[in-house]
């Protein structure tokens, strides 16, 4: 598989403040990658660097020519003060293709409706964005990312603030999109338990460093304990991985 984005010995950060040093990562064509870590570990810095809104402080970041992102921002970034309807929001994903100063055509509208169909909310096309639930709003943003026919779908904390049902549905939808079309997907999240059961590869970023590998490589007791610096247990239930931090005992040993 060819690399669409490559980080080579990259130093990433803001101004003079380096968040990550010596960072190496390839985002491959057809990848389903989760960039996972706690808040402040540097996952947003990685995201902003490969999206091009942040320049690396050092090293090399190579982006394949003509690469097109379908970006799904965090849901709470979307401003509900704007009186926009679902179809209007989805159409924004085609604005750069339509061209500056030009109006969307009937074809653009048709493509936007098809994108809504792909994410299962075609019936909501004419609803105001404010009338939607969190999950429906997230689907709208995914449809907007898809309508631009991207090479890479990038999702920033797609399940933040969602309940269990909506989380499962959104992650299932993203996985389905990847499996059906081979679309490259990069998902940034702090929720290791959620992401690990859907993606194929993980870049686990932590204050102490980072580790990149397949889910099987990264989701081990040893790797995670070393990464987080506390004893971590990885269990499995009906094929689902569950990561548990072992309960702290404050040094008191309880003998059975």
């Amino acid at each position, binding site marked *: 598989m060819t690399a669409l984005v490559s980080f080579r010995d990259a130093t990433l950060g803001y101004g003079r403040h380096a968040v990550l040093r010596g960072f190496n990562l390839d985002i491959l064509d057809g990848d389903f990658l989760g960039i996972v870590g706690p808040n402040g570990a540097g996952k947003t810095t990685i995201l902003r660097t490969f*999206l*091009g*809104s942040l320049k690396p402080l050092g090293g090399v970041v190579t982006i394949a020519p003509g690469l097109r*992102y379908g*970006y799904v*921002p965090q849901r709470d*970034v*979307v*401003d509900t*003060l*704007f*009186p*926009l*309807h679902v179809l*209007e929001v989805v159409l*924004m*994903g085609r*604005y*750069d293709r*339509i061209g*500056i*100063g030009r*109006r*969307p055509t009937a074809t653009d509208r048709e493509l936007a409706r098809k994108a809504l169909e792909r994410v299962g909310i075609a019936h909501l096309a004419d609803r*105001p964005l404010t009338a939607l639930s969190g999950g429906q709003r997230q689907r709208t943003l995914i449809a*907007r990312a898809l309508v*631009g026919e991207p090479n890479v779908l*990038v999702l920033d904390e797609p399940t933040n603030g969602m309940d269990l049902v909506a989380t499962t549905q959104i992650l299932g939808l993203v996985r389905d999109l990847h499996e059906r079309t081979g679309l490259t997907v990069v998902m940034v999240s702090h929720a290791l338990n959620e992401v690990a059961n859907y993606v194929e590869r993980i870049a686990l970023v932590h204050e102490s460093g980072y580790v990149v590998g397949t889910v099987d490589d990264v989701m081990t007791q040893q790797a995670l304990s070393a990464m987080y610096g506390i004893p971590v247990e990885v269990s499995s239930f009906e094929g689902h991985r569950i990561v548990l931090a072992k309960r702290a005992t404050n040094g008191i040993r309880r003998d059975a």
Partner: protein
Amino acid sequence: MLDAVLLFREALYGSLIIAVTCALLGVYVVLRRIVFVGAALAQISSAGIALAYWLAGHGIATALATHPEALSLAATLASVIFFAGTPRGPVPPDARIGVWYAVAASAGILLIAKAAVGEAHDIFLQGNILGITRADTVELVIASAPVVGAQLLFQKELLFTSFDRETARTLGYRVGLWDLGFYLALGFVISIAMQFAGVLLVFNFLVLPAVTGLLLARSMAGTFLVSAVAAVVAAVIGFALSIPFDLPTGPTMIAVSGALVILAWLVRRMQRRS
């Protein structure tokens, strides 16, 4: 009453041009949550007018007495470029704008207090809507048409870069440049309108009609339409009331704008209950 209104018809036309242009830009001012920027630019623009009168009054640049908009425009556009080009620092952006607002307001008052040009105080505070002539109306049309035209032409670009900057950036939009263009248009309109309408009325037309639009409309197109209509209604009714009742025209228009906001809010409440 009709005779009196007809006598000042150029003033009415001028008011309508200012009202509609500001009301259309105002939708973005409110949606972008930069109402305070609008207020600060209006104050900076008025400080520019005050400086022009002060300089003219002291014989430094006498031509500025008849064309104070030149200095007002220069001050406003320079401030826009300065705002846009200042990197993020330890002082939050709204506090920076607050500093500019306070300094510009006080500078304007101090300069106008020492300006030797007659009636400058009234013009500074309230504008001089009734003094609009045919030549002024033509000037307003020439100044407003490109701004309204650009807003219509680049409607989707302005909408996208206002609504979701990060995603727009990933699709190749140079968000900073679109912001700068918007602020320059805003500064331009404010500085042109200021010399006729004054700080308060310009600020009113930038904010209140847009709020009315957002309260009543359910779409972006509807919001622009209601905002423009609310501005026209406020200008016409305010104008028509001010002449027979001998009221100051600008504040009467503002009072009507305020009444329309209250009306819109009541309609919104009733819609929610039903």
